[in-house]
């Protein structure tokens, strides 16, 4: 069934998952100038851990989800505290290598714990399929899109209405200035990593449900593409990030449908390179002042 609206819908669902991951990346780069490649690993841990909680320990889904979010948030805070904070102010390459090290460590730890092969993911939501003319929508797709949009609206509210959120936005604008007016960057960093990593955990669970399987190598490429979304949308712009995520989701769905599924990643990264060549600070980004 190769109708365009159907592919757009699929792209919207995948784009939502990218958005959940991209937000954390956008904030960590925006505030702390960290290219947090290991974020994809946190997302993978979210998928794998919830698998164990659901399938082996047979926890109720809500409890499993809550535990997963908490563990992922804790993991993010741990990374911030012990891997990134000591490197603050260092060359980007140094934090980047450290982040790649974390990703490698997580991925291979997961291979040791869960084995390298994909596991089928418990489908705790009974699947419902709705047809709208020629379009097929599942309740899961609706859940993914609605939940993501709700979370993004919530995040926007936090950013615009709370002190912590305003401090975050101020730091994105001007990290040095934020420090001068007394914003505690350490506390802010912990908050950003906790929230971003918690969202990554949610994305891991949703991906498990959507793709129906999880495996230790699911994080690396997914995280990279989420980062591509951030860069395409424009660093330091939350709206741009979400836009970039949906753009990538749609482009991937269309590439898979009309060109070749094998070229999906190629096209995504070609898009990234192209956008940056034309607009070096992304679609909605402004040039970021260097601290």
């Amino acid at each position, binding site marked *: 069934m190769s109708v365009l609206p159907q592919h757009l819908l699929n792209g919207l669902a995948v784009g939502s998952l990218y958005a959940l991951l991209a937000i954390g990346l956008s904030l960590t780069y925006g505030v702390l100038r960290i290219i947090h490649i290991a974020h994809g690993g946190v997302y993978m841990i979210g998928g794998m851990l919830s698998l164990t909680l659901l399938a082996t320990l047979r926890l109720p889904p809500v409890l499993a989800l809550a535990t997963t979010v908490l563990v992922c948030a804790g993991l993010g805070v741990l990374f911030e505290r012990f891997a990134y904070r000591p490197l603050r102010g260092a060359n980007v*390459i140094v934090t980047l290598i450290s982040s790649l090290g974390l990703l490698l460590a997580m991925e291979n730890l997961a291979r040791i714990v869960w084995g390298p092969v994909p596991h089928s993911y418990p489908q705790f939501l009974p699947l419902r399929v709705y047809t709208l003319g020629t379009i097929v929508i599942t309740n899961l797709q609706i859940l993914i899109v609605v939940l993501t949009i709700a979370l993004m609206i919530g995040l926007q509210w936090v950013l615009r209405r709370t002190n912590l959120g305003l401090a975050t936005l101020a730091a994105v604008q001007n990290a040095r200035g934020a420090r001068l007016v007394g914003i505690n960057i350490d506390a802010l960093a912990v908050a950003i990593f906790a929230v971003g990593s918690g969202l990554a955990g949610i994305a891991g669970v949703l991906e498990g449900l959507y793709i129906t399987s999880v495996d230790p190598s699911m994080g690396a490429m997914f995280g990279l593409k989420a980062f591509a979304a951030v860069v395409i949308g424009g660093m330091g712009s939350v709206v741009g990030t979400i836009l970039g995520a949906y753009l990538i989701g749609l482009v991937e769905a269309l590439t898979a449908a009309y060109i*070749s599924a094998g070229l999906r990643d190629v096209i995504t990264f070609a898009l990234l*390179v192209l956008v940056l060549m034309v607009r070096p600070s992304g679609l909605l980004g402004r040039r970021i002042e260097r601290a």
Partner: protein
Amino acid sequence: MLDFLLGPYALTLLMLISINITLAASLNLITGYAGQVSIGHAAFYAIGAYTAAILSTAFGWSFWLTLPAAALVTFASGLIIGAPSLRVEHDFLAIVTLGLGLVVQGLALNLNITGGPYGISGIPRIELFGHQLGLAGYALTGVVLAAITLTVVRRIMTSRPGTALMAVREDPLAAEVIGIDTARYKVLAFAIGALFAGAAGSLYAHYATFVGHDSFSLGTSIAVLSMVVVGGMGTQWGPVVGAVLLTLIPELMRFTAAYRMLLYGLLLVLMMRYLPQGLLGAFPARRR
């Protein structure tokens, strides 16, 4: 003669280390000296290897012809792939080069000329005076290639173009204002670095007699960058130390691959925390 001193395992390791030194030293020119972060160096390695594979299997060229041809092709692709460094902000260049690396790997997997998922097999081994090279011959060729790369990089870095490259790394605006065409030198660094990665790719293709897309993954790019950083960016011997250590350590760890890579990852994290300048770090990790 080398056969008597070293067994086949040691010779294979020597060969791999030499290729890694070549890759690390050439990336060091781009990232360490010229300051252009690249996580896509495997792309040049891949382009060189596939060029050699295609020219030797389809046109019957020998290694002695595919080597310069691969170097030339990668030099040209370095000029193209280096172009984003002119537009993109420093931090994003890492992501763009990473993206370009994935694009090259993805093309290798999807194009017909590269054999798609099957790769290209049946690449002839290296012949010298009518004799096929043994393991010792390959190891020696590798050592010579690494030595040439190191010498060329050192000569460039102790001369006018080298001064210009480091000026571009330190302060592109000040470099431009004293008359250094920063665009030209950034792209030149990419092209020269690419040339040697391409040469290494050709050697690898004729050694393995097979090339497939998964030999040139993001993992390869990360490994090479790690060698440069762990050894010490912008130092003469850093890439050698980094390449030797990061090739040997996983080899010598008699664990399964997963345990090895877990430790490798943790090693990188600890290394960056306690020794961010690398083992031979000459220039301090800059505060910005």
